[in-house]
């Protein structure tokens, strides 16, 4: 019983890591722009596809390099490409609306549409057949105190902490991060201080998307069957996790992701698995009813 419980703690940590990494991207964009970027889950999906192509091509060349190097190259290139995609989406879809001073609601709807365009564009270009993600990392099974882990699972869990640490550092300690917080604080006064608002927003999207890329690759390695809709549900759930954590707060999004992961895993552990979503979301609903701003959210004022 105890080993089962411990095994499920690790199952929850791994699953929560994905929610956390995706929730952090939501949180970053929301914190700066007050925009719920509903396309974020699909950017995550696109990252998995980018990594699929790069990884398959690299492994296909059969270069005399170990899998871990292939993984690192794929990671870096995919992060770059996905950041580019994020910037492109911001340029094409969000900036024109912002320039016209459109209500935030319209931008959110646009984000939803961008998500559908990415899904269906992918479907149109690549066809609907599920793809097998290449195995870049040799999975080793580690037996430890009666539970079984893989090196990949540990990597996933570690990555989510690294992503969180990086984002926390970036937002609080760097100049761009400071500018991001400033925009979040008052986006009308900030241009007057000589801060290039558009450039900061571009940086926000680039970083948010690059973080989604990290999650996308690790997800592809962990669950190696890709399809164009894979980002939709997990994206929405990660958004809910970010809200429960207190959207706009990096710590909140991070913890919210793990919270949702653990709730889902432990509901299945103790109840019939058919009630997973029912019970999980009832718990989240109760949390939000008691604390509408989420765990770390502040009613208004500065976010991020």
């Amino acid at each position, binding site marked *: 019983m105890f080993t089962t419980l411990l095994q499920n703690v690790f199952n929850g940590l791994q*699953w929560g890591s994905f929610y956390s990494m995706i929730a952090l991207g939501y949180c970053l964009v929301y914190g700066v722009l007050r925009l719920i970027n509903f396309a974020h889950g699909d950017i995550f999906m696109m990252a998995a596809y980018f990594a699929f192509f790069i990884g398959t091509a690299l492994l296909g060349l059969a270069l005399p390099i170990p899998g871990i190097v292939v993984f690192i190259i794929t990671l870096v290139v995919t992060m770059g490409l996905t950041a580019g995609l994020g910037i492109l989406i911001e340029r094409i879809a969000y900036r024109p609306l912002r320039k016209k001073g459109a209500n935030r609601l319209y931008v959110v709807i646009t984000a939803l549409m961008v998500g559908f365009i990415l899904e269906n564009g992918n479907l149109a270009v690549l066809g609907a057949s599920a793809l097998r993600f290449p195995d870049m990392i040799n999975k080793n099974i580690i037996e430890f105190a009666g539970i079984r882990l893989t090196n990949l699972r540990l990597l996933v869990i570690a990555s989510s902490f690294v992503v969180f640490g990086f984002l926390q550092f970036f937002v609080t300690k760097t100049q761009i991060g400071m500018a991001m917080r400033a925009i979040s604080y008052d986006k009308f006064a900030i241009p007057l201080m000589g801060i290039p608002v558009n450039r900061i927003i571009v940086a926000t999207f680039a970083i948010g998307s690059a973080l989604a890329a990290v999650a996308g690759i690790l997800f592809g390695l962990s669950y190696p069957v890709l399809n164009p809709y894979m980002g939709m549900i997990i994206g929405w759930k990660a958004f809910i996790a970010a809200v429960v954590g207190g959207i706009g707060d990096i710590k909140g999004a991070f913890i919210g992701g793990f919270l949702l992961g653990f709730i889902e895993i432990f509901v299945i552990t103790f109840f019939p698995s058919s009630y997973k979503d029912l019970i999980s979301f009832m718990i989240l609903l109760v949390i939000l009813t008691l604390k509408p701003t989420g765990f770390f959210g502040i009613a208004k004022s500065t976010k991020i």
Partner: protein
Amino acid sequence: MKMRKKLFLLVLVMGLALTGLFASGDSENTIKIGFNIPMTGDSPKVGEGSKFAAELVKNRINEAGGLDVKGVKYMLDFIYEDNGFKPDTAVTAAYKLIEQDNVLAIIGPDGSSQAIPAGGVADENGTPLISPWSTNPNTTLDRPYVFRACFLDPFQAPVAVKFAEEQFNKEKVAVLYNLESDYSKTLAELFKGAWEDANGSGSVVAFESFGQKDQDFSVQLTKIIASGAEMLYLPVYYNFVALIVPQALELGWDQVVFGADAWGSADLVKLSNGAVIGDYFTTHYAAAGAKGETKEFIDAYEAAYGYTPDDVGALTYDALNIVLTAIQAAGLTGDLEADRTAIKDEIAGLKDYKGITGTMTFTPDGDPIKDAVVVQVNAAGEFEFVKTLSP
């Protein structure tokens, strides 16, 4: 200026809509058959198998000058509607085929989740529908116009139990199924019932489920492994099998996994990266070692598309040929409603129809009485014949 732009857009949209309407104009001497199949969505390979099998038949007949119906040659015209593997889209597709495209008969949907609602639409509108692959009883139940070309779950589950007992000699089993799929849920429950009848209550030590969009099954599998099960029954679609079986192996599962006919996709071994090798599943036909017309079909399919057809392709081939045989027997009057009913009557009256997936006679419910086979995934990734299970 703005007004004109709007007007222009409106005209453009209307123009597009109208071309769509006129494009489907009728011509003399064609037989229109509709296909309600998943070409996108979670299981696109299923729709692809159906479409490719149908194209083979169509090309062969049309190149020979058309289908001979009582001395008159008719060209075949197939309309493929994508149902995206979703129940609501399958219903829309069924209405479109019946009312807009005026098809004589419909093949598909393939999956039970779509075939159950779409079958209702076809029956209400007096259009014969054959589902090649839907094994759920409700698809044809009390629907005179709805048929299927495959066996049923109430048959598949008990013969699977019987086979598993003889072959594996295990007592405690676990079942993992997809809660959001009628197919998976029904099969799981029937299997559980039949297993407990044979081995006593409590012999199904874990009965777990997951949702259509789930990708992580580690908790369910942890529970199953902790339950001490000696076999896992996994009546789910191949795309889930490809995720579940590797995760199970990672968590330390070392027993046999036994699946059902939804495993039978050409993509199964590729997507699971070989993790399913050595496992068994019940299905409709075994491609490896086929003879006669079955082999001819497999060879033609491999030549045209480069891979071995899966069971859904073979069943679509049978379903389509049953419809064409019925049309030849009934003759065509040109009155759509009368023709549709005549075709339905002919299908219902078929006796010992020799298809490539077995010999079929329809029961009054529209279900064929036919055999199932068990195959094992061999080291080469082929589905190797193990045993025929008769009703």
